[in-house]
């Protein structure tokens, strides 16, 4: 019985444009727009940030650090500067000029997008509805079940095409409210202009080089997030997930997969 009623319903909804327009979207236009703007800005920041790092691929704590001092982390990469002892017999070409220009321009795009997203998320209930986990999902047992499902690389259930699971919610919240703000903060804390106006921004972190080190560590965490995020999309179904984030359309939950 359900099959006979479901089929004409679906064809009807496809035929009628007004019903089509009312079809629920998996992701709102604001979420889709900010998602892709952030993606573009993040890739630009990552590539240029990596390039800038090559001019001094060593990291220090507290305020000062240079080739006369011991780094806590040496990436052992070739450098674009002859004064950095790398052990390599060659010096990479200097690309810092455009890298710095593009890094800060992309940072403005990221910050502007982030502010818009923040206001949207607060006033349209996006955070409350889609990202904050239900309290019943926050038990160790529920998280453990979700974790085991992920570790077994199980394909997501039908309702997960319409709602994030608890691990997804927690990791998105961590990226949006911890990692992104830390990135912006540590970035500003390396600006001599900014720290002259807001010296506490760098003092609270423990110094200029600590800010630079945290900026690098958080980059590594964000890259890790990106890798897992993309792998999960492939496991869940690349076409359906991409379509949902580009057009907003997904198979309505009542119809199943």
């Amino acid at each position, binding site marked *: 019985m359900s099959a006979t009623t479901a089929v004409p319903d679906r064809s009807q909804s496809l035929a009628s444009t007004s019903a089509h327009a009312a079809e629920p979207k998996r992701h709102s236009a604001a979420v889709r727009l900010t998602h892709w703007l952030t993606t573009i800005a993040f890739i630009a920041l990552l590539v240029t940030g990596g390039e800038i790092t090559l001019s*001094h691929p060593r990291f220090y704590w507290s305020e000062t650090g240079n080739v006369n001092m011991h780094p806590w982390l040496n990436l052992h990469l070739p450098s674009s500067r002859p004064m950095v002892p790398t052990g390599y017999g060659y010096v990479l070409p200097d690309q810092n000029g455009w890298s710095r220009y593009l890094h800060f321009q992309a940072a403005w795009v990221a910050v502007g997008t982030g502010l818009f997203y923040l206001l949207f998320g607060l006033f349209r209930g996006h955070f409350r509805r889609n990202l904050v986990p239900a309290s019943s999902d926050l038990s160790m047992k529920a998280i453990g079940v979700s974790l085991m499902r992920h570790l077994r690389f199980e394909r997501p259930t039908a309702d997960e095409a319409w709602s994030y699971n608890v691990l997804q919610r927690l990791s998105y919240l961590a990226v949006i409210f911890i990692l992104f703000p830390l990135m912006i903060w540590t970035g500003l804390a390396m600006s001599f202009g900014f720290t002259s106006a807001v010296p506490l921004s760098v003092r609270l972190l423990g110094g200029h080089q600590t800010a630079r080190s945290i900026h690098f560590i958080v980059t590594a965490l964000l890259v890790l997030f990106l890798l897992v995020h993309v792998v999960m999309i492939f496991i869940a179904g690349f076409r359906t997930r991409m379509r949902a984030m580009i057009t907003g359309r997904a198979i309505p939950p009542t119809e199943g997969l």
Partner: protein
Amino acid sequence: MKKISRRKLISTGLAAAAGASGLAVAAKVAKHHGLIPPDAGGLYGPGETLTYAAQRLLTRHSMAREFSRSEISEKPFANSVDPLGDDFHRMQAANFVDWRLVVDGMAARPSSFSLAEIKSFPASSHITMIGCEEGWTYIGEWTGVPLSYILNRVGALPEVRYVVYRSLQPDWWESIDMADALHPQTLVAHGMNGTELPVPFGGPLRLRIPRQLGYKSVKYLNRITLTDSLKSFGKGLGSSAPEAGYAWYAGI
């Protein structure tokens, strides 16, 4: 249905027009208040303008962080410089008695100062951090004459909007706006960590500007030019940095 989309079209059009004219007004206001950097054209102009304008609104009178004497780096790092040439080494051998700092352009009394004269002017010191765009930093104590004192002494005209300054090295010249030129921490430095400014660190004279990256702190300073426009200097981008692909404003 059609009516709604037309209404939507009109309102979107009006919003776009309002946005565009808003931008145009913002650009005019920004220009009037000197918030547009000389390298504002081109692909990265929007980001550069936002950075410079935002920092200028925030930092017009802010002071670079100062440190205690115990925080001075034991081994400061001197980045490599291009070969300084025979003329420089001859002057160095004579303890730079022939070194001159020419101050010209829009000044009532354009002057040429000897190193001894510069050292006789009232000096000021600060323990600040210098940071390279590459990412490394050190802390040092710089001693020198505030640039504002020199601008006063030559009678800088009220129309001056930028100070252009040059190194003995032909391809290294920079400029700053008046917020930095008149800033109390901007020094024509002749001393570092209690001694005369060593040659690898820019001696005998270096323009030390602690609210911007190291490349703005030009070493081997020998000429300062006061101007109301940067258009006639080099390619008109404000300094040699944008000509080599780097930003003119280096507060970030």
